């Protein structure tokens, strides 16, 4: 008899489906056959567990139903239940208003001060934001480590390593003031320089040192400090002392690139940025690198020094008036200058065509290279 057959028999016995003789047989079997008795006990146990399971699931179902009808669908009954509030909750309820006020005060203070600081700064910054100085920042070329590595043959890997020059960090423009080697450019071009070199189209290259810096009007007077330098000879242009007229055709030479660039326009206002009376507004398209370039009128007079342009405004560039430069130089005493700066008053460019003027002029306009 397999276990399954036994179970069938047991179920029939319990359901009372057996006849008299079979029942007696069954009882005897249970007493004498230990295997059969064992199976009977198993069955009992299994069904005991099934019974427990059945009743419990039914009861759980019932209780769940009671619970939902009593405590969830009818909120009135839950009013009797007073969930105990924790001490934190009580504290919160008592001090909620105070905390809220304190928090909002804190928030308002923080953001208020941030915003007002911001506004205050932006007023200060506005000038810088709208006025952009025009020196050119040169991308630093990463020099390879090879310079430090000796190859196997023992030769330095870069031949003529001494000749490999470090590229300049900034580039501007400048021009000659006097034959004795004085030179002018914008202050912001050289403001954080370690050393300054000037270089022109002919390939002349001189080291210069600072003589005088005027931060407010963005001018810097330099002097060539090179033993090889003797004299510039006669300057072809003269410095204009009076203010130039509106609509004057003007042009400039500068170094927004490695090569000299010519730019022309007109004098559009006799005051500069925000009404600065020491500057002109001009309509020459200028770019970073043009700073410090000469502003020449149609007669070949030097009337200004390019300094910057206004952002978000088309064709508004600015130049410092030569008149201011002149007064500045006259005001510089013996203490700053070893030798006086003699600005040329003779103009050799008047009446020449523009191209001829430029030919004579270009050797006196230098690229200013800043190393730091």
């Amino acid at each position, binding site marked *: 008899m397999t276990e399954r057959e036994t179970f069938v028999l047991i179920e029939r016995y319990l359901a009372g489906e057996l006849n008299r003789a079979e029942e007696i047989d069954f009882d005897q079997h249970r007493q004498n056959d230990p295997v059969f008795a064992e199976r009977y006990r198993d069955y009992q146990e299994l069904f005991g*567990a099934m019974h427990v399971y059945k009743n419990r699931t039914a009861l759980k179902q019932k209780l769940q139903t009671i619970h939902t009808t009593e405590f969830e669908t009818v909120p009135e009954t839950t009013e009797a239940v007073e969930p105990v509030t924790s001490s934190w909750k009580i504290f919160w309820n008592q001090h909620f208003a105070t905390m809220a006020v304190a928090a909002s005060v804190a928030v308002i203070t923080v953001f208020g001060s941030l915003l007002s600081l911001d506004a205050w700064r932006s007023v200060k910054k506005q000038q810088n934001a709208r006025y952009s100085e025009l020196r050119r920042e040169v991308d630093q070329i990463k020099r390879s480590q090879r310079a430090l590595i000796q190859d196997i043959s023992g030769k330095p890997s870069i031949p003529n390593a001494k000749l490999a020059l470090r590229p300049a960090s900034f580039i501007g423009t400048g021009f000659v003031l006097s034959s004795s080697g004085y030179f002018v450019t914008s202050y912001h071009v050289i403001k954080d320089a370690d050393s300054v070199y000037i270089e022109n189209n002919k390939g002349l290259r001189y080291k210069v040192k600072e003589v005088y810096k005027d931060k407010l009007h963005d001018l810097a007077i330099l002097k060539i400090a090179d033993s090889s330098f003797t004299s510039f000879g006669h300057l072809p242009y003269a410095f204009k002392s009076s203010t130039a007229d509106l609509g004057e055709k003007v042009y400039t030479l500068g170094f927004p690139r490695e090569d000299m660039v010519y730019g022309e326009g007109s004098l559009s206002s006799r005051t500069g940025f925000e009404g600065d009376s020491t500057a002109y507004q001009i309509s020459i398209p200028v770019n970073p690198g043009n700073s410090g370039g000469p502003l020449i009128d149609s007669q070949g007079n030097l009337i200004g020094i390019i300094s910057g342009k206004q952002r978000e405004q088309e064709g508004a560039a600015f130049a410092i008036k030569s008149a201011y430069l002149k007064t500045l130089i006259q005001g510089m005493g013996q203490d700053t200058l070893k030798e006086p700066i003699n600005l040329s008053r003779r103009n050799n460019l008047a009446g020449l065509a523009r191209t001829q003027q430029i030919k004579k002029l270009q050797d006196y306009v230098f690229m200013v290279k800043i190393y730091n």
Partner: protein
Amino acid sequence: MHKALYFSDEAIIHGIVNDDEEALAYLYRLHFPMILNFILTNSGTEDEAKDIYQESIIVFYEKIKAGSLELNCQIKTYIYSVSRRLWLKKLAEKSKYSSASINDSDAYLNLLSDAAVIDENDQKFSTMAQALNQLGEPCRTLLEDYYFQDLSMQLITEKFGYTNADNTKNQKYKCLMRLKKLFFSLYKMQE
């Protein structure tokens, strides 16, 4: 359907013995707030309170049904004691608190004498639940329909689409043998 307004403790027990739903509902209503309060004060949630309370009601109910309840206190105290014991166990599982930090709101009894019986039923129940889960379909539904829902063989045959009742019977016994195997293996594992 009228609701009885009040049952005495004896009436409740009597009602449960005679399967009176009213009595059970009354009992349930009566003590839930107490247990809810107790669980909430001892870092539990409303849902946990519900589960714990229902479990203790089940314990109480089963003991009455089995005729093994020797009640020498109020039902309220008994229910509270059972719930308290269950909650302590739960907290120990969570291992958040030692049993020392329970705030009691009522008097309670130590139920060590009852513990064995309760646990045996618990074990039977959970083992059977596991076994049924592992049994899978269609066996599970078939057995539940036959043994728990008391559906007739004929109905089950139609429901499952067997050809005749004999087939269904065979199927049922197959399932029963599998359940038995599962149940006893699980049971032995737990011991």
